[in-house]
């Protein structure tokens, strides 16, 4: 009887030991047996990993195990041997045109006489990130608006491999300051809109992959964030707004001068509904007779003198969304 119990106990201990060792055996099974083979593990790494056409590309032998020690190395690009690259562990070449395929081959002749051929293919693709900040610039201004704190930025990514790639066949992952936006990767999401965060600049990055997960291209751009600026421009009854700003110390020659304050890079929402849009003449708040809060008409009073004109526009919700400027008018 005692012997029988002893036998049961041994069986139970054996079973417990087996159960305890099973997960370890499972983990062991996940190791690739080839990693323990005698074949040296060498690969070609490319930098940048997804080059644009015309980029200077560096191809390196990734040989952490030292398996190619003493090997003779010959490089070729698209079948043509690269001169001066013999036995170099790193070569540089210029990526071909958009959509072309560049085949980089490294032939390794090992001291043992064995030959190993490594190959990688690059397909240069243009990835253009177009930033369209939704801030105010005058109609005549031919430059681009710039983002200011809190304003909305529209961004569009264009992939071109000789022609524009249909965005519906691409999955886009957008990041602002390395934080994924839009909730994650979006198929066909080549356009996004996001608010400008605090700081002097932001880093916008995007990764484009095929629906099966192969990376097509990835890129990051640094976007400068500016403060709104204000300029005064003379408005002529016949010609409209001048595109040359009024001097800070201007002279009124006629009897009437119409000035328009033109905020640059002010959030368009603030521009359309400013909490503060205030003109001061000689430090006295002056009601604006015009329907346009950014416009004021000055009339000469007295023989001559000097007056200061000040304009202030601002949002009270986002106080950095605003600007104030002053000019002096002699008459």
């Amino acid at each position, binding site marked *: 009887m005692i012997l029988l119990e002893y036998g049961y106990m041994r069986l139970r201990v054996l079973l417990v030991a087996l159960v305890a060792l099973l997960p370890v055996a499972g983990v062991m099974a996940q190791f690739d047996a080839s990693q323990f083979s005698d074949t040296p593990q060498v690969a070609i790494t490319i930098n940048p990993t997804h080059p644009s056409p015309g980029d200077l590309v560096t191809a390196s032998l990734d040989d952490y195990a030292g398996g190619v020690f003493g090997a003779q190395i010959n490089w070729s690009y698209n079948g043509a041997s690269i001169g001066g690259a013999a036995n170099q562990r790193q070569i540089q070449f210029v990526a071909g045109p958009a959509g072309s395929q560049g085949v980089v081959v490294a032939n390794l002749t090992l001291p043992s006489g064995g030959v190993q051929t490594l190959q990688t293919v690059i397909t240069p693709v*243009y990835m253009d990130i*177009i930033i369209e900040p939704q801030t105010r610039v005058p109609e005549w201004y*031919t430059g*681009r608006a710039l983002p200011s704190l809190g304003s909305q930025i529209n961004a*569009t990514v*264009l992939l071109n491999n000789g022609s524009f790639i249909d965005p519906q066949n691409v999955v886009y992952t957008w990041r602002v300051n390395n934080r994924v936006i839009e909730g994650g990767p979006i198929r066909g999401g080549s356009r996004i809109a996001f608010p400008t965060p605090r700081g002097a600049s932001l880093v916008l990055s995007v990764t484009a992959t095929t629906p099966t997960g192969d990376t097509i291209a990835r890129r990051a751009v640094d976007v400068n964030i500016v403060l709104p600026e204000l300029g005064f421009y003379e408005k002529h009854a016949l*010609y409209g707004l001048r595109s040359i700003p009024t001097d800070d110390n201007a002279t009124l*020659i006629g009897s009437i001068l119409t000035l328009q304050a033109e905020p640059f890079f002010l959030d368009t929402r603030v521009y359309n509904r400013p909490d503060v849009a205030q003109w001061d003449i000689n430090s006295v708040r002056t009601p604006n007779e015009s329907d346009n809060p950014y416009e004021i008409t000055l009339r000469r009073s007295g023989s001559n003198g000097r007056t200061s004109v000040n304009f202030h526009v601002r949002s009270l919700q986002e106080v950095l969304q605003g600007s104030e400027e002053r000019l002096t008018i002699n008459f």
Partner: protein
Amino acid sequence: MQRTVFIIAGIAIVCVLVGVWVYFLFFATPAEDGGVFANFNLGNTTDPSVIIPAEPEPVVEPVVDVASPERLRQLTTQPVAGFAEVQLTASSTPEIRYIEAGTGHIYAIDLTTGVEARVSATTIPLTRAGALTPNGQFALLQSGSGLGAEFVIGALSPDSDQLRNFAIPQPITSFVATANNTFLYAVPEGNQLVAREYDPSTNTVQELFRVPFRDATVQWHHTAAGPHYVYPHTTSRLEGYVYSYLDGVATREPTSGYGLSAVGSSDGYIFSRVQNGEYNTFATNKTTGETNSAPLTIIPEKCAFTRTDATVAVCGIALTDYSHLMPDPWYQGQMRLDDDLWVYSVDEQSARLLVSPENATGRQLDIVHPQFGINDANLYFQNKVDQTLWVYEYNPTPTFTSVTQ
């Protein structure tokens, strides 16, 4: 006795005083320089609180002599909204026509005699921009700006000074006239910018191409087929890219950078960008695919390629130091340039000075909207500061000498 003497002396003194008073009253009027009583001499005061009004600068009316033998001539004293050299018939002498800013009136100037005539008296208030077809029959005018902008097609008649016009109810962002007497224009639609061609003689519209973003600058070719060069609006703080559209097909040009703008032809293009903190100019020869640094720094918007040789451009170039923020200050009007006219060969990477307006006329010109006339005989352009129209008789067979920057 003494009392009598005192009385007589007193009366005499009174008489003398009265006489002096009468003399001054009737005869001694102060001379014209008599500012002594009115001039408080504030100009010499050291009191900083005294306001001394600035003397307005004397307005020097520029002399306009369109029939002058000089190759560089000012054609107008008034701001111009648009212009074109037109040839009414195959045998007629070309003339320059311009649209007067503010009124929309259209004038013609005979370049031989200098005679100016108004060909359209129809007033289109607040005219800001315009284009005229080379046959002189149609005009496209922009009135007002921003949301209030209106675009009008006008038909000119040789029998009347009235413009028969109708509006185009579209928010056009840029437009030009082609050598084939049609208009090209761009309109934002959704997230795209659509380029169309309008033929006013048949009243037909044809879509040319679609740009997959809105804030785009289009450097139009003088034909509808192109190539038209398109890039995001330029700023030194954001990256730009250049695309060319030929027969509606887009090509991504191998050019990108901050502060990027470009102007091009079928054979090449000139572009400038900020690189390593410097604003520099490059030229790409599309035949060879080579891109080289230009010998001078150019704002591409100041260039026009000739039509007889698509590798040659004439540019307004200011020999000055450009900041790394270019071209933003120039766009904002904070920077005024004193340009010379240079001819630049993309093929030979060389440049030659044509004329210095300051030396030739004494005027500093900030050249914008350069445009060649028929057979490249004349180059027309405007001065950005006052929008006046100028002409330079261009020699179409230049010889080049290298210029080292």
